[in-house]
């Protein structure tokens, strides 16, 4: 069984990223389960989505310390999900900051050492800069798909399978942009 946590901030498309992974895994014949939280989290809060696939999946929630991958679309959100990562797990984190309300209000400080801390404390850590490819893809909203593109290098499904899963998961009019974003993400060189 493989387990992946996507983490980000409301509006970044974390749940769609999870949906694409579920779709590609289901198309390959795996059992899949996912868990997400609606409601309060959408009001600028943290959003996460747990996805597990394998021959048979029971829990839709990943146990702490057991996730094979944590894919964070924002730096602080990577920190919040670290306890879920397994010791040999892989962290892929977008080098991007969204200030929480208390930081905006001057009541808290956004830590400035997250990137370096992660690189020196997490065994398999890849910090990526998606800004350039997002510009090339033509939409900042595609950060979720770019991150799925990066993740795709680590999983067994081929490019065609991913593109089919994206086709099944996004609206027709955004399809080309999303496929482009996926492939740009897939080609980002990793540290």
């Amino acid at each position, binding site marked *: 069984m493989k387990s992946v946590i996507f983490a980000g*901030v409301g509006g970044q498309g974390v749940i769609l990223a999870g*949906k694409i992974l*579920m*779709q590609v895994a*289901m198309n390959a014949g795996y*059992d*899949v*389960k*996912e*868990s*997400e*939280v*609606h*409601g*309060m*989290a*959408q*009001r*600028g*809060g*943290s959003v996460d989505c747990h996805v597990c696939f394998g021959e048979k*999946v*029971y*829990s*839709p*929630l*990943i*146990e*702490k*310390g*057991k996730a094979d991958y944590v894919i964070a679309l924002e730096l*602080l959100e990577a*920190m*919040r999900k*670290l*306890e879920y*990562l*397994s*010791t040999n*797990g892989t962290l892929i984190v977008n080098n991007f900051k969204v200030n*929480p*309300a*208390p*930081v905006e*209000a001057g*009541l*808290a*400080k*956004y*830590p400035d*050492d997250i990137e370096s*801390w992660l690189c020196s*404390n*997490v065994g398999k850590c890849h910090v990526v800069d998606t800004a350039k490819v997002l510009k090339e893809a033509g939409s900042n909203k595609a950060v979720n798909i770019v991150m799925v593109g990066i993740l795709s290098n680590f999983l067994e499904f081929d490019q065609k399978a991913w593109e089919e899963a994206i086709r099944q998961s996004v609206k027709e009019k955004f399809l080309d942009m999303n496929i482009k974003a996926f492939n740009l993400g897939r080609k980002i060189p990793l540290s």
Partner: protein
Amino acid sequence: MQKKVMLGNEAIARGAYEAGCHVAAAYPGTPSTEILETIAAEYRNIKAQWSPNEKVALEVVAGASVAGARAMAAMKHVGLNVAADPLFTFSYTGANGGFVIINADDPGAWSSQNEQDNRHYARAAKVPMIEPTSPEESRQYTKLAFELSEQYDRPVIVRITTRIAHSQGVVTLEEPTKVDLKPFIRDPQKYVMIPAHARPRHIFIEGQMIKLKEYSNNCDLNTIEWNSTKRGIITNGVAYQYVKDVCPDASILKIGVAWPLPDAKIHEFCRKIEELYIVEELDPFIEEHVKTLGYKPIGKEIIPLCGELTPEIIDMAINKKMPKNEIPLYSGNIPGRPPALCKGCPHGFVFEVLKKLDVVVNGDIGCYTLAVLPPYSAMHSQGCMGASIGMHSGFEKARGDEMARNSVAVIGDSTFVHSGITPLIDLVYNKGTGTVIILDNRVTAMTGHQDHPATGKTLTGEDTHELDLELLCKAVGVKRVRKLDPKNMDEFEKAVKEEIAAKEPSVIISLRKCILKK
């Protein structure tokens, strides 16, 4: 057979469709909202509607059932409190067409004001309750609920929790069954609950519950999965899935019928087990029952009573092992992301004014409850749908004119229609002089933008009569009713000052559409 990845809530909608459901009604409420939204979007042959509140939704569904249709109401846990009155008596009148209630509990209070465990309602109202553990079972059990309802002449509750409602899994799609309306037979002894009819119906339903206990003992919703008998775990709902992962060697009694519980199967299981555990979220509902059967399980001593369960909580409680990785702890501070009102939210203007005026604010249920937090910190009471206005009256009764001149009630448009009208009548009737601000953003925003009677649109997007809140307030006897845009904050502040100073009831309709509404 076709398979599809679905949310638990989508799978419930699918189950209703496959069961040939004719009518569905609900009031939106996280985590149940997507059930009716899915029906309206995907299964257009079902007559689906938003009702003003859960009580009305349940009554519409009861009526449809008596009239011979298969009908389903969906609501969150606290919604069943609102609908408890019809539940308890429609339990007596029972079903004609299949009568199903979907109840979504919210352990962890992800988006709710409490963590109540609604299994107690099944026992109290003498209604069978079944509990799926996955999206696929959500589809199957919803379908089954219609059958059970007709077979045993009972409303049937399907209880889910947030992690069932909002988790996805592979669902098998089956063809819908074509179900005709059952004949409607005028049968006042069954459908009109005067005391003389209620007494024999009570005896009848107690008999039905005995038959249902027999069903519970023999059906495959309650299953024993034998493994090592050294350790046995009785579990239900999503906790079953966690137990499967963290205790793979234990024997399991999976409870799919939450009420009535399967005594014979519990005996069969417990007799053979050396070390017996009960893993259930929230209250010790199964645990207390198992204890009455003479067993001594380990339950709430180690499984938390409060909050949502997770695999690691169960792992720690039963296996005494702390699941963690070897990544060191970060010593700095990770600032949280408390939910906040959106930038440009109309409620923000209102609460900036109320904060400045430093008045007591009796609040209600909706996005605007976030005004209790910084930067506004401008809410001082809140409890349930509609409570703002009733509590506002109570504040005035307790502390008199001085309180009324320094306080307001705030309530959203959808919440006002749900439960705010009767307390406003009370305020006028009992000679209150308070001010109510209706935060009219033209939508049920908190649950993800649903229509309601004052938006002029139905669940399926059709135009309908638009409830006029201004006329309504005047009709109940409020003479001072004003409507204004809160973005003009100076004018709004002036209006609030004038209305709270007036020694008669007043309503300010703060009209500005939700910033997220197109």
